[in-house]
């Protein structure tokens, strides 16, 4: 099996699906001729033609709005927003339109659009190239929210997203684009939504993380293990639908929970996980639920490394939770 980085895995998924299904069209800013500023859509235009992979005007509300119309009329749009920071002008089209059309039409219409976007920080891009605002999307029913943490998951979940009958927001931690590598089949395969991945089993503390933070946590739980603390590390992979059961089951076993995300703490998705556990597994909790997250500031440029959780911070939280 070939080894691919995250970009190659996504690119392979797009090639597979465009090959398989003539309804799939890929578009966004700079995705066509140039193959995307991160090259995720590289080679698609030359392979499938300008009608199936094309550049759009610089207008996110237009990109998502047009994607909805294309999906209504039977195409399968895979739209790229160049950075997640720039998805906000399209927030209305996503939350008020895309996520609602099936419901408000009584199930008559659906717009199974995939919106892909490079998310999260760690590339020293300042506030406008670092945001992970997944929680403003998980608040909206009618759309799936996916954030794979490695190339294998990325490919399987992207193909699942493209085949989904529902809209999907597909978040790609750009820091992993070139740094994460894995064995990835050339052939298409899918990974179902709503199934968490347990990266490490353990009995002392449950650690839940997604995106780049999965890698940070891997390091932290290994260090914890060296200190005799056995953590269970869970990557939900899809935040909506969320594999609640996997998290609850783990917490029932470990009695302890540390949630790690890049997004700002206040009303981040970590809050939802904490609330679910505080409602459904409270009797099992033996320590406070800890959130290790971005601080409640705008990700700064020079001081960026302070903003993001790193392995030492996670390890400390694990130790404090277990030692509580």
């Amino acid at each position, binding site marked *: 099996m070939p080894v691919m980085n995250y970009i190659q895995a996504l690119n392979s998924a797009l090639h597979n699906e465009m090959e398989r299904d003539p309804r799939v*069209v890929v578009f966004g800013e700079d995705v066509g001729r140039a193959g995307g500023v991160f090259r995720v859509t590289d080679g698609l235009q030359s392979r499938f033609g300008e*009608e*199936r992979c094309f550049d*759009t*005007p610089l*207008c996110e*509300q*237009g990109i*998502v*709005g*047009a*994607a*909805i*119309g*294309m*999906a*209504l*009329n*039977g*195409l399968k*749009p895979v739209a790229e927003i160049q950075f997640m920071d720039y998805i906000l*002008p399209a927030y*209305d*089209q996503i939350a*008020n*339109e895309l996520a*609602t*059309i*099936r*419901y*408000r*039409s*009584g*199930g*008559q*219409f*659906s717009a199974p659009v995939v919106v892909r976007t490079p998310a999260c920080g760690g590339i020293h891009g300042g506030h406008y190239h670092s945001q992970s605002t997944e929680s403003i999307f998980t608040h909206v*029913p*009618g759309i*799936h929210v996916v954030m794979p943490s490695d190339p294998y998951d990325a490919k399987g979940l992207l193909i699942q997203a493209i085949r*989904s*009958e*529902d809209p999907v927001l597909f978040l790609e931690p750009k820091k992993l684009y070139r740094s994460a590598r894995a064995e990835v089949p050339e052939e298409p395969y899918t990974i179902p939504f*709503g199934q968490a991945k347990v990266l490490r089993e353990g009995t002392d503390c449950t650690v839940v993380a997604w995106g780049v933070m999965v890698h940070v946590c891997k390091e932290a739980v290994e260090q914890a293990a060296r200190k005799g603390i056995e953590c269970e590390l869970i990557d939900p992979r899809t935040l*909506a*639908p*969320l594999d*609640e*059961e996997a998290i609850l089951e783990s917490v029932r076993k470990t009695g302890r929970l540390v949630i790690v995300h890049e997004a700002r703490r206040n009303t981040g998705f970590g809050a939802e996980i904490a609330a679910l556990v505080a409602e459904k597994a409270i009797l099992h909790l033996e320590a406070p639920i800890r959130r290790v997250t971005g601080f409640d500031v705008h990700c700064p440029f020079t001081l960026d490394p302070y903003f993001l959780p790193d392995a030492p911070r996670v390890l400390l939280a694990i130790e404090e939770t277990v030692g509580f």
Partner: protein
Amino acid sequence: MAATEVLQLLAPDGSAASEELPAELDPQRLVGWYRNMVLLRSFDRRALNLQRQGRIYFYAPASGQEAAQIGSAAALQDGDWMFPTYREAGACYQRGLSLQALADQLFGNARDLTKGRQMPNHFACAALRIVSISSPIATQIPQAAGCAIAQKIKRERAATLCYFGDGATSEGDFHAGMNFAGVFRAPCVFFCQNNQWAITVPVSRQTGSESIAIKAKAYGFEGYRVDGNDILAVYTSVKQALDKARAGGGPTLIEALTYRMGPHSTSDDPRRYRSESEVAEWERRDPIVRFERWLRSRGWLDDATVAAIERETAAEVEQAIRSAEAVDAPPPQSLFEDLYAEPTPRLREQQRELLGLIERGVVERITRTPLFG
């Protein structure tokens, strides 16, 4: 034609500017349009009354805009798509949405095609390619452009007709949709009913441009004005634009000058912001009266037919409303359907939660659309 000239085929007094009619317009079809206009005027009045009586919650009337609505929708062909707004009961009806479906939607009953999910006036019909209406202004414009781009990619010989008001032209989504349509030369006809007002704001406050039609220049395609109270002018211009779009000629913007004779909606009192003389002036240009005069002048309509049409349409409207009102509310479990193709575990859990609450009598079962007030 310049973006500020106005295409008119019927003068307000019902006299015709030209005697030549497109071949497809036989007297039967024209009288059919007239009948639809009368029916809609009657539906409008009835719906306003229902709201006043507290039998429906809300209504947005379109009286005064019947020519713009019927004339434009009449120009559509089967394969075309239509993106209406909340004011387009008339266009939806002309497109084929039954009076019963309209009435059911107003009551949000269990038979409503949209399952009572939305406020009155927010119709949807997939079979007729009438795209689900949402309340936010202008959001349908880039969607319509996208639908038309898909038509082009799929090489369909079809077009998309996108409705919106003068107020909508101020939104960012208007710009987005027009620009996408222009760049991709999408087969999309943008049909703006400039009814002079966006709730209480006059069009002069909406834009500094000399017309709405001229805005097409910013996107590289044609825009023109038609007399929106002249059903022949509306039909002809929309038909030409749709034909052009289907033939690969790209998008067109049509500004139909018309007037909302009634309130913005049942929540609005227009006397607070506009003069009686303005309203009276536009009443003289009533699109139904004008078309009736012309049909009479051609000998295609007479007193007896007019009376029969008025009687019959009123009865039809009455019947549809009675029937709609008699139907129950959608069932409680439907609250959790249609979010996704398959409900998620979270939704299933919440559905059980609600049904449990109803069963235990904690929450009361809804059997009818709750009354107003």
